[in-house]
């Protein structure tokens, strides 16, 4: 596959993830969509680095994956806490941060 095709896949993944973040109401579905967006970005980074021969970019992608895992751990913990309260896994109901 060529670099433009890979970048096209990455932007498709990002858009799907963005749609999921904006449109899904369940917290876990939103977390999954965020993962999708992360991976799209990682894919784009690796693609550009690989096509230009920059190894540093590939290493950066590895770091990105590690950070994503940590972030997911925090996110899941939050969702678990929210789910202890009845019916509070829907993002629309977690609106205490209003002004």
């Amino acid at each position, binding site marked *: 596959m060529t670099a433009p095709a890979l970048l096209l896949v990455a932007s498709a993944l990002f858009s799907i993830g*963005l749609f999921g973040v*904006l449109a899904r109401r369940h917290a876990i579905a*939103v977390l999954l969509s965020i993962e999708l967006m992360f991976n799209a970005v990682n894919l784009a980074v690796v693609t550009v680095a690989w096509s230009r021969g920059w190894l540093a970019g590939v290493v950066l992608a590895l770091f990105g994956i590690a950070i994503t895992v940590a972030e997911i751990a925090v996110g899941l913990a939050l969702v678990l806490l929210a789910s202890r309260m009845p019916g509070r896994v829907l*993002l*629309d109901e977690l609106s205490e*941060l209003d*002004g």
Partner: protein
Amino acid sequence: MLPLALTVLAGPLGALALIGLVPPLRRSGRPAAFVAIAGTAVALMAAAALAAPFVTAAPPAPAAFELVWMPLGTVPAIPFGLLVDGLSASMAVLVALVALLVQVYSLAYMAGEPPSSLGRYFAYHALFAFAMLGLVLAHNLLQTYVCWELVGLGSYLLIGFWFDRPAAGRAALKAFWTTRLGDVGFALGIVVLWSAAGTFTFAELFAKASSGAIAGGALTLGMLGIYAGAMGKSAQAPLHVWLPDAMEGPTPVSALIHAATMVAAGVYLMIRVAPLLALTPAVAEAVFAIGVATALLGASMALVERDLKRILAHSTVSQLGFMMAAVGSGGAAAAYFHLLTHGFFKALLFLAAGSLIHAFHTNDIFSMGRAVRAMPVTSACFAAGALALAGILPASGFFSKDEVLAAVLAGGHPVGFAILVGTAALTAFYIGRALLIALVGAGSGASREAHDPPPAMTAPMLVLAVPALAFGIAGPTVSRLVAAPEEHAPVVVPILGTLAALGGAAAAWVAFRRGALEIRARGPLAPLIRALERRWYLDAPFEWGYRVLHAGVFRGIAWLDRYVVDGAVNALAWGTWGAAGRLRAIQNGRVQDALYAVAAGLVLLAWLAWGA
């Protein structure tokens, strides 16, 4: 000299600050009074020490102290300063002395007031004393103007002291408005002189004017403006209408402000700028003519008045006319001498009148009577003041009026001289009338138990009686204070003056010796008497003017303020409120709504970066 001059101002100012800033002191009444009296006493002692060197045979040179108050870039800065010369130092003594005596007198006269009002009263007194002393010691026109307005404020507050009386409120407003009318001219005059000469300071103005550095037209215009201010304060016709109404204030206030000091401020200012007046003959001519007219007008209105205080107020108007006539004909020293003696004897007359009013509970001279036996001290003091006012020989008024008449004659005004001699006869007549009816006559109040007031009231009167009778010998000293050459009047002047005074007094004796006798508005003189009782119908135009202003301009301004100025502010407030109500709906706390905004922003940024 500077520390002394500052002490003169610091005394009353300290008292004002203490009474004004410590509410428990103000509400306590008499302690506040003692604070004010102490402040004035300090001012009096400092002023006396300040004036003492100037009455010696070898007076020191005038001293001026100056601080930069307001730097103005390229043009000279506005200074703040004190001018100590014979004129200002001796005037400060008069102001502080009369203020002190009046405050002591007020202790007894106002004893019936509730403590908090009494504190307010003495706070006003301290304010007035400070402003008046500042006016006297000012060394430039702008500072004079500032103190001038403060003095007007003090007068307004004290006339309206009994603000629950509608008449007092109206009188205070009328006094304020009428003097403001003149003050507009004063402000314009200061600006004209400043733009022509580039300075506010008296000494620099005199130097520039005498060297011809100020254009003649500008000088005349500026002096006219300053005279307009003096007209308002010193109750010159036709701006005299406020002074009789100002008698609504407490009597000691009338003695201090509306007889001895504030109303003399206009004359004092004209004496101060006499070197400029000498260069503007047209203005001097106007000062003289209006002065003579005012003298006659005031004396004529006093002839038929029934209210004792108003008789004295009309008399003050008339005497101020005498002083202005002297200033206008080049006799600043004579005017100043008359200012001083008038300060003493008119304050004395007012204090004696206050004690009569206190005893008889009325202002109407026809409701008083037989006070001579019941109130010997008061009667003697009133008689001493009347003697001085009428200008009968041993009393001080004789000497000063003599000098005024001589100055008018020397200034080349024989007609004005004749009118003033006639006015002197009227003066003796009206004060003789008041004295005979109120003290000797058997009015309706005569049978009532009247007695002399407590010592706090008699002592100030007795102190004032001394200069009222004996200050005449100080004539040469006063000339030296103003640095004027001593002039010897033709001997005909004192003879004519005495004849006029004795003639007026004799006429009063013939007409009123049997006591209460009303002048009936009948016979050929009836229209004249009615006109006099209505004060020459001069109040009506002012009332009409005020009403027109009120109905037209002020309502318009009020409407503009309420609906346009306030409206703009309110519209802004309501607009913000409404917009906020709508905008806060955005902040609903839903993460995904915020993310929509982020995504839209992202798209916008991308479009800006690459698309456009």
